[in-house]
């Protein structure tokens, strides 16, 4: 099965709406893209179309959260995190249990180009006290994560994809907030991947295995608070450390892994991600090829760095 994590979110929040009357959903004129439309159709009295007013939407979400509601504020990742000061003071500094849903993450959105791509969003939100940051890698994980968010205390940022992602996890998958997931065995190298690049890293591990390189793929769905214990363990057990994210390497998952290892088990870390550049238009496939995010690109980076 293959599904966009935004679609998985839309389906799950519409389902959760039946169980939890406190859930409210807000959108800023992108409900057909963020897939909050499923909830809107089912619960029109608990869906609020805010118009193209993202900052105000985040403030309203904060007020709803502080009044006992469980608000999900949806827009593209770049437009949500572009309203940074409102997220910082209204939501984070009030420790409001708001859920910011940022879809259309990364260059994986394709043709719409840079202005619609969330490329620095993890980095921005990760630096805010009280905030948690999660990015699921498939439909199953997305639905489990969204179910978890209902009970979480404090503000959360959830990063979702426009493009379909192949199922990585089994139907019996047990989501654990803050815990990484080891998907393949291997001690030659470890790659900590998140979101869309988990799929690519798994394919890369198959390619590398044929060449005698055993790559351990670890899915980091919770980027903050990050699973320090698992990162240190893997770094100790594997010769080389890699990270992979469809996001800038500055302040994202790569940085988070480096921060953990620098203080606990200094290691050489190679970060796959955007190297301080913007994205561009193109098909998602062409973009992933150009920026080395597809399985071939990841495999090549790993092979090259391990032999250098």
């Amino acid at each position, binding site marked *: 099965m293959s599904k966009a994590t935004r679609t998985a979110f839309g389906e799950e929040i519409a389902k959760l709406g039946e169980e939890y009357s406190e859930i409210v959903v807000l959108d800023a004129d992108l409900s057909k893209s963020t897939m909050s439309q499923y909830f809107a159709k089912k619960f029109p009295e608990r869906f609020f179309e805010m118009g193209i007013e993202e900052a105000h939407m985040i403030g309203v979400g904060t007020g709803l959260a502080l009044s006992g509601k469980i*608000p999900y504020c949806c827009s593209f990742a770049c437009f949500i995190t572009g309203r940074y000061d409102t997220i910082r003071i209204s939501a984070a500094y009030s420790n409001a249990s708001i859920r910011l849903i940022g879809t259309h993450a990364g260059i994986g959105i394709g043709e719409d180009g840079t202005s619609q791509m969330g490329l620095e969003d993890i980095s921005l939100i990760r630096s805010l006290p009280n905030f948690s940051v999660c990015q699921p890698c498939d439909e199953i994980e997305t639905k489990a994560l969204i179910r978890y968010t209902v009970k979480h205390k404090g503000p959360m940022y959830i990063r979702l994809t426009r493009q379909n992602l192949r199922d990585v996890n089994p139907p019996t998958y047990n989501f654990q907030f803050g815990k990484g997931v080891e998907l393949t065995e291997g001690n030659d190298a470890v790659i900590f991947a998140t979101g869309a690049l988990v799929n690519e890293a798994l394919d890369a591990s198959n390619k590398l295995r044929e060449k005698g390189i055993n790559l351990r793929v670890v899915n980091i769905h919770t980027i903050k608070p990050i699973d320090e214990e698992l990162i240190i363990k893997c770094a100790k057990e594997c010769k080389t450390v890699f990270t992979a994210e469809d996001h800038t390497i500055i302040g994202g998952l790569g940085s988070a892994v480096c921060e953990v290892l620098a203080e606990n088990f200094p290691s050489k870390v190679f970060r796959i991600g955007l190297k301080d550049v913007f994205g561009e238009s193109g098909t998602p496939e062409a973009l992933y090829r150009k920026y080395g995010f597809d399985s071939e690109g990841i495999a090549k980076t790993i092979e090259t760095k391990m032999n250098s």
Partner: protein
Amino acid sequence: MHKDGVFLKNHFDCYLILVKFGKFFSNMTDIQQLQRIANELRIDIIKSLHAAKSGHPGGSLSSIDLLVYIFFEEIKRTKENATLPTRDRFILSKGHGAPALYAVFARIGLISYDDLMNLRVLESCTQGHPSYLHLPYLEASTGSLGQGLSIATGMALAAKIDKLDYRVYCMIGDGETQEGQIWEAFLSAPKFKLDNLCVILDYNKSQIDGYIKDVLDIEPYVDKLKAFRWNVLEIDGHNFNEMERAFTNAKSTKNKPTIIVAHTIKGKGVSFMEDKVEWHGKAPNDEETEIALQELQKLLN
């Protein structure tokens, strides 16, 4: 924590005593009493700013009459009702006016007089700008201008969803109105027919860099808000009779939010601070404090 003794010694304490006997709201409708409380709180504001050696006297003194009316006549805040889910809410969007709000909180007993005098001190609940993390009675953190009205909108929306009849009050500044997010909220609240939302503009006509009209004029304010489909009322923000009429009108207005454009005087009550831009954000020194307190004491006598 609460130093009742200090209040009794230093202030006219009719309000506190009557609240304790549960007779306050039936007996104390006298506007002179509200005026007296406001002037006593002006003394507390000056003392706390003097102790802190920094802060914003101008906007605190311009807003205190309105805050006294809102908290004592509208919200009727007590320590007992301050955490009820059905309580009326107040958000100070112009967060730099915090000393005035803290003075009201101390008077009600939500914080101690010591807390008030520890304004801006390390680990105090009276942070330089309102911090919900330090003081939950604030309802939300504010201080980055333009944001509080959106939070208030969310709270008013929550009341509508739950079919509860609590009201949400939000004070904004005139300079703050230059922020884009304020206009997002102005456009938004009428859509949701939030007649339980009452915005109070503390229109004291100046901001840090000068007079509003020179920095970035916001006029014609009333016309703009009427065009945005708000119920717009214009009053003298130091006149309690006008406040009573406006807040009563707001409560009886259906299907749209109300904004009370309250014309105020920056630094009101202290002659050398009145309408002086430079008193936006500096604390009085020892000598200035003495003069200010003498002037305010005269108002009480």
